[in-house]
């Protein structure tokens, strides 16, 4: 039995085309991925990402626990600030990539991928000391992402809270809205300015409807997983299971900037060595020069030799061509280098390009 979010009936009413995503029944699109993508780049897109997990880490030992769990300096955080990082294994591989929201010195709210909730819980519980409490609030929490250049205008129409306009990127606050407490964070996964709204399940439908209504004059569209994937790919954001995994380290994924902690965290030895001396493999961005659409698992060939495999791919409506990311042997491809991508056994010309495809617009 597939799981449904609190917004399931809304998706059906909006003609969402439902698919199985990590055991969740979610819309891959409503009308058209291209239209939903365009709405998010020019006005706003509204995404139901309630399948994602939320874990609270609470207690006097919470901060030192996190120092042990992540390769990023925990001091980067302050109350009301969030950051992107990952949970690493001893060998540097990634258990999951996560967002940490610092509520207070002793309380942290962690957002994790849907497919890895159980695995993450097991991992953090196995490493937590007695002065840390781990609470999984995934099942009662809905997450609605409002993304796009018009998102602040739309948000302030719904939420009469002047703090929204003052929010810096990666900051968040808790607000009261129609007697419900919600968390508003200026974060996202699209390359556009935007907000992520965390609400109790029973308030999700009314908030979703309010946002769609307030956004009407800005051209808001409900947007499915298909648009979300293309938006994040253009922004060259990693997707767990693709550019990051148990066997791909953050350094290999091009996320050196996450490896900054001076603490004794899990995976430190490998990650510091890779950061200083280079990792055996690296994620590159590429554009297809020939016709076609790259997908994941396409072999990458240079001078007839296989040097890696694509990890994500698709057709970029902004660039009007196939784009993707690939994990290749280090030192084999520099920006500008030509290579071949094997699509259904046909070599198609491609070129390594600068990351990202689409610069953050906000």
């Amino acid at each position, binding site marked *: 039995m597939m799981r449904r979010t609190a917004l399931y009936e809304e998706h059906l009413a909006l003609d969402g085309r439902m698919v199985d995503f990590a055991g969740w029944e979610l819309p891959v*699109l409503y009308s*058209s991925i*291209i239209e939903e993508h365009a709405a998010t780049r020019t006005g706003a897109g509204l995404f139901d990402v309630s399948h994602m997990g939320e874990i609270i880490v609470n207690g006097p030992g919470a901060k030192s626990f996190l120092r042990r769990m992540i390769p990023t300096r925990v001091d980067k955080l302050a109350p009301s600030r969030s950051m992107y990082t990952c949970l690493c294994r001893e060998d540097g591989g990634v258990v999951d990539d996560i967002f940490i929201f610092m509520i207070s010195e002793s309380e942290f709210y962690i957002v994790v991928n849907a497919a890895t909730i159980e695995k993450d819980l097991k991992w953090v519980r196995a490493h937590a000391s007695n002065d840390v409490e781990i609470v999984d609030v995934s099942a009662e929490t809905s997450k609605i992402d409002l993304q796009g250049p018009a998102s602040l205008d739309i948000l302030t129409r719904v939420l009469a809270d002047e703090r929204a306009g003052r929010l810096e990127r990666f900051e968040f606050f808790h607000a009261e809205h129609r007697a419900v407490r919600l968390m508003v964070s200026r974060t996202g996964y699209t390359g556009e300015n935007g907000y992520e709204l965390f609400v109790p399940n029973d308030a999700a439908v009314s908030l979703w409807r309010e946002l769609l209504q307030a956004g009407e004059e800005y051209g808001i569209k409900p947007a499915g997983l*298909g648009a979300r994937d293309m938006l994040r790919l253009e922004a060259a954001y990693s997707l767990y299971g693709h550019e990051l995994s148990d066997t791909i380290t953050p350094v290999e994924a091009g996320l050196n900037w996450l490896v900054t902690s001076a603490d004794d965290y899990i995976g430190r030895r490998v990650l510091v060595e890779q950061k200083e001396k280079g990792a055996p493999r690296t994620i590159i961005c590429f554009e297809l020069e020939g*016709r076609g659409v790259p997908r994941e698992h396409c072999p990458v060939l240079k001078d007839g030799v296989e040097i890696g495999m694509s990890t994500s791919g698709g*057709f970029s409506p902004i660039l009007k061509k196939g784009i993707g990311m690939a994990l290749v042997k280090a030192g084999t491809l520099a920006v500008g280098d030509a290579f071949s991508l094997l699509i259904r056994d046909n070599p198609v010309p491609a070129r390594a390009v600068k990351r990202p495809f689409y610069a953050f617009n906000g």
Partner: protein
Amino acid sequence: MSHIPDDLKYTKDSEWIRMDDEFTATCGITDHAQEMLTDIVFVELPEPGMEVAGGEQVAVVESVKAVSNVYSPVSGRISEVNRALEGSPELLNGDPYGEGWMFKIEMKAPRELDGLMDAAAYAAHIESES
């Protein structure tokens, strides 16, 4: 409800075929197929002159979200392909039975058409799959 013209024959994989004369037919994918795929961004066509068997894969259609193989409804020789689709694959979304035609085939055995579905049977087929 997708559009299913009465004068065509259909395969279970949602290709259509229209007889142009006694031996030549035009083929494409149905309105239902393009609706399922949505935004089509890439079409790979067969080479004219290619001999194909009924049910053999002859083309590939890719939308933003998925890739789909296209099979020849009948056996024969590909006589012509719609090159306009290479530059404008969206024709398949906009006019799947007209400007979005994919290839013409000189049929080996026109009686193969008897094994294909008519509009009513195809409508029932896609209904049963939904």
